[in-house]
């Protein structure tokens, strides 16, 4: 236990360092003590973007962690389960039809993405339980089927859209943080807050789900209720991120897996570690794309492309390493 506390403290220090230092890097380096216009860029553009990246990374990583515990499978993530696509479909519908409204400062797009995420997770869960058991093939095939279906629907929406709508959907679908600002951060934080808090309280239940649903029941877990709460938390976070940044893949798969290696699988420590690591990971990836565009002088690489480039090989590695059924 002491070891885990030390590891968590180190992660916290690293996360603070990333949050403080990342804004300095971009197309051009801006020092801490910059003034005037440079300071404006630092505080008004880069800092909110880094904070957005951190929040989005945390949310994707936490939802991936929750899915992996619930489905007892390291390959269960928002992306592979089709939850990102569901959220994207919800958001795309909103962008296409341009229905702009907000409740309590939360945009309609975010809510539509949340509903899309929730519906797709219920669909995947229904499909996998129907086939009996969360075996990797069933899970991945259901996820792929749902992903394809929703992606075609998004393409269909693009097809019936004008050029402007179509372009904004395409750009957003690549997963980008380039438009992040304080208002977007304000749209992310409530989703992170509610989702993260729910998962923090459910750490014992997630441990027991990971051990097995029958054991969870025999220990007194109200599995029906807890499942709904986990679905709710994860959909809130995936929907929240996708509405703002588009579907950024693989953060939700890599972060919890790496965290399990460094703090172990007990969700009491794994949840805060995944929060910190996921945030840092995406903030660093996004900083890298900014620096890259500065070096190449070209347009910015969407961060979703970078995470997918890293995540693809990682995914294959996990698949090859799979001994028997579960090795979370």
């Amino acid at each position, binding site marked *: 236990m002491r070891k885990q506390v030390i590891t968590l403290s180190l992660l916290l220090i690293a996360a603070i360092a990333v949050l403080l230092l990342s804004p300095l890097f971009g197309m051009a380096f801006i020092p801490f003590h910059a003034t005037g216009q440079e300071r404006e860029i630092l505080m008004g553009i880069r800092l909110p973007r880094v904070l957005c990246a951190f929040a989005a990374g945390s949310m994707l990583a936490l939802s991936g962690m929750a899915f992996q515990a619930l489905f007892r499978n390291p390959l269960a993530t928002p992306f592979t389960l089709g939850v990102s696509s569901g959220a994207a479909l919800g958001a795309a519908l909103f962008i296409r039809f341009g229905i702009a409204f907000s409740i309590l400062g939360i945009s309609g797009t975010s809510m539509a993405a949340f509903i899309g995420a929730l519906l797709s997770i219920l669909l995947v869960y229904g499909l996998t339980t129907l086939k009996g058991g969360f075996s990797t093939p069933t899970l991945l095939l259901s996820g792929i089927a749902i992903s394809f279906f929703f992606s075609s629907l998004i393409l269909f929406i693009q097809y019936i859209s004008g050029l402007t709508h179509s372009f904004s959907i395409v750009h957003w679908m690549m997963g980008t943080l380039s438009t992040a600002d304080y208002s977007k951060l304000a749209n992310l934080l409530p989703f992170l807050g509610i989702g993260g808090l729910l998962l923090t309280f459910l750490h014992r239940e997630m441990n027991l789900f990971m051990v097995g649903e029958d054991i969870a*029941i025999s*220990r007194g877990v109200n599995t029906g209720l807890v499942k709904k709460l986990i679905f709710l938390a994860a959909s809130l976070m995936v929907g929240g991120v996708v509405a703002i940044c588009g579907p950024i893949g693989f953060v939700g798969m890599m972060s919890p897996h790496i965290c399990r290696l460094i703090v172990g699988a007990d969700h009491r420590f794994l949840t805060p570690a995944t929060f910190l690591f996921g945030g840092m990971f995406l903030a660093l990836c996004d900083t890298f794309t900014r620096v890259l565009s500065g070096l190449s002088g070209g347009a910015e690489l969407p961060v979703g492309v970078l995470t997918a480039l890293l995540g693809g090989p990682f995914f294959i590695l996990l698949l090859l390493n799979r001994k028997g059924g579960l090795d979370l």
Partner: protein
Amino acid sequence: MPNSIINIKDLSISLSGNGILKGISLDIAEGEYVSIIGPNGAGKTTLIKCMAGIYSEWIGSFLINGQPYAKLSSRELARLQSYVPQAEGRTNPLTVEEFVATGRYPHLSAFTSMKQDDYHAVDQALQTAGLLDFRKRKIATLSGGERQMAFIAAALAQETKILLLDEPSTFLDYRHQANVAALLKSACRENGITVVAVHHDINTATSCSDRIVAIKNGTVAFKGSPLETSDAELLNKIYDTKFEITPTPHRPLPLVTPGGAS
């Protein structure tokens, strides 16, 4: 029975349209060790899963500790009874200590953390199961026998009056079989825990139980003492295969060996 802790009357359950259990009645006294035996597909596992709350769509009457089953919340139920499922090589990424601590779940709320007595219960369970040296090891790295001990230890950490086990010694080598048997026996004899275990091996069942219940085709085929169970004709009827009963001079019970189809 005056001090019955489990009282089941006419329990039936259908799973995906198939009647698995048909009118099971069972009365178990506090502190008793009852073994459930029977051929494959008889409904032994289904019965123990009904008792553990994993299958809840059964009909019939079920009193546990004198209270109707349905009146108890899942946490209340989990403070009365714990369950050890069939091993089947199942594993998880927790360490032994973390895994055994999951047994404390029904004693904790979402807003409380583990207290002194929770840690004590975990230590006690680890010691009883002989796992103190393994506490930091990952469950996945244990041998089948050690892993089974960890699963039993987690159930013991739950500190319940009733312990339900599904084939606790199947797939184990002789030493671990003996360890598991000794552990369950002492839990029952010394701590007064009621043990209900599904056993595949008749000699294991007869050697440790107060009473044997045989299930066949979803009904109770026989209830009786271990000595009464050690009967070739009776076992032939239950298992549809021939048995040989060999008297053993130094032990109270004869040895049962299966011998060819009847």
